[in-house]
């Protein structure tokens, strides 16, 4: 479904990503791991259109999408979360989810001003979808709180829900377990598997929590210093000498 070919990203003299390739098939969880500063988030930023890659191709269903503006890529169904949660803090939880569904709503000014049946129906449908996902991530009680006032773990879950209401094909999660306690990480684990199993979403995951990565990934890509180091199933990666040397077994 998504194919990244020889992706390179250069910032002035610094080659942050060098010839990284990666492919994601339908219905699959693919992880990107690597030491801090390896260029994982840069790969994400290229894939989601925040950066225009300096080399290589990104193909979605065989069509090139590299260099397209971020909001267009998101409309193609590639939606991401952020390493540091980015919510609309002074808007309520429901409003956060409504903003995300912009594409599904009737945005015609006139039909909104006179509240045509079509406008109201779409608005209601969006509310229902928001309500569904709030229940799914256990935030229904907090629907009308300001998003900025939620606890950290709740904010993480809201961010994922906000991606899911857009009905994406591919979800890119940037360190979703960072700052979560073990119980919350287990819940997240369940949630991500369920996204794949029940909602037919492919997931690309950047994560430092090895137990999470090894548990749920179908395939893992290891990057070190911007270069691809290894790729394969969790089992293969775990036993790869290069990986152990560069990343896991340094101590």
């Amino acid at each position: 479904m998504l194919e990244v070919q020889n992706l390179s990203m250069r910032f002035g003299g610094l080659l942050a990503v060098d010839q990284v390739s990666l492919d994601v098939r339908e219905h699959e969880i693919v992880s990107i791991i690597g030491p801090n500063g390896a260029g994982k988030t840069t790969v994400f930023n290229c894939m989601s259109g925040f950066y225009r890659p300096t080399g290589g191709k990104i193909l979605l269903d065989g069509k090139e999408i590299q260099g397209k503006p971020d909001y267009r890529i998101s409309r193609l169904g590639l939606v991401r979360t952020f390493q540091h949660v980015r919510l609309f803090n002074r808007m309520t939880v429901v409003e956060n989810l409504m903003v995300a569904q912009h594409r599904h709503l009737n945005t015609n000014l006139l039909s909104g001003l006179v509240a045509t049946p079509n406008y109201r129906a779409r608005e209601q449908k969006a509310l229902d979808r928001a309500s569904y996902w709030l229940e799914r991530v256990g935030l229904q009680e907090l629907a009308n709180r300001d998003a900025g006032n939620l606890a950290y773990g709740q904010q993480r879950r809201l961010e994922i829900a906000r991606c899911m209401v857009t009905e994406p094909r591919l979800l890119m999660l940037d360190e979703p377990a960072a700052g979560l306690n073990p119980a919350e990480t287990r819940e997240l684990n369940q949630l991500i598997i369920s996204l794949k199993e029940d909602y037919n979403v492919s997931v690309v995951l950047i994560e430092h929590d090895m137990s999470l990565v090894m548990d749920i990934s179908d395939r893992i890509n290891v990057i070190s210093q911007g270069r691809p180091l290894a790729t394969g199933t969790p089992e293969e990666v775990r036993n790869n000498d290069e990986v152990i040397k560069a990343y896991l077994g340094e101590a």
Partner: protein
Amino acid sequence: MVAQNFRHALFCALITLIIAWPIMGLKLTAVGTEITVVGASAFTWIAVALAAVIVFLFQLFRDKVMVGLGAVTILDRLADREPLPDEKRLRLENIGLVLLIAVALIWPFFVSRGAVDLATLVLIYIMLALGLNVVVGLAGLLDLGYVAFYAVGAYTFALLSNYWGASFWMALPIGALLAALFGLVLGFPVLRLRGDYLAIVTLGFGEIIRILLNNWTSVTGGPNGIGGIPDPTLFGMEFGRRVKEEGNTSFHETFGIAYSSEHKVIFLYLIALVLAIFTAFVIRRLMRMPVGRSWEALREDEIAARSLGLSRTGVKLSAFTIGAFFAGFAGTVFASKQGFISPESFVFLESAIILAIVVLGGMGSQLGVILAAIAVTILPELAREFSEYRMLIFGAAMVLMMVWRPQGLLPMRRRHIKLKAGG
């Protein structure tokens, strides 16, 4: 503690003296052809000294005074009240709103002409502030040149009537649309800018418009302005003593009542009232529509908004355009009210005052902005008795306000959305 406060208190008292001494104590008086400095009366000196002592004592015992104020239980009880249940509150608000509009409709028939005139001005500022609230309060784009769109609206009417004899009702939509167009045009170059940079560019834009109006003498009359802007008519009925335009009738003759110059003032007030209500209503709806939500999303986090598929271009331009549209509305009414406009009415201070209204009222909050518009317009009028201290009082009120309630008079309250149980 007290010893620590002592120096601070002394300093504050000294500052009070330094400020009050020349302002209150010295007067310029014309003696023949010369101007001499005259000291004020003994009473003023005593008052100044007294003020310094009060400041000193307050600062010295500040902590205790504040604790004392905090212990006033009535205030606490007011603040700690249970919030009303949503439905009840909504009903109360609706009743309040209807009453308010009814009073606003009837009220001008019982008061003086000057009061109605002032009220019309208040309504114009309400329209302006509500429009700017979209740009600054909701979309979070600091616009310091908002008055430019106001000027576009006013000059559109003035020029149309001057050159093509357009009436108020024809100019109203044209003025608003033209202002909106200017908003759109300004929007493009500033799309990538945020915060301070945006503020400076919009400031420049505001000045360009004013200077253009000032110097394009052949068309706009330059600093002499444009006069003879017609009053609005009611279904072809004019409000003057004599009918100016062929084919129109006059209001007092049609209804067989005595001519009164007040009719015109009241009529203009009513037009402004209807337009202000229209503005408030439309923006209120917009806030709850997808476009309103995307404005706020962009203000809160541009990167997240884009990652969810919102186009920065569309959202920013819509905010600028809609904000400018209502400024154009207000400008047309203003031109009609004054009958004469010149670039002097559209200086930067005007932008600053409108911005102050939005900030004082509470960014994003419509009711707050309306209250602030009333306060900011009427306060200088009430303080007229203090003549030269007027702006001083005005400034002091703003400083106090920002210290007391930095979030504004009535901060925006988020709408409670009820979800179906069980989804």
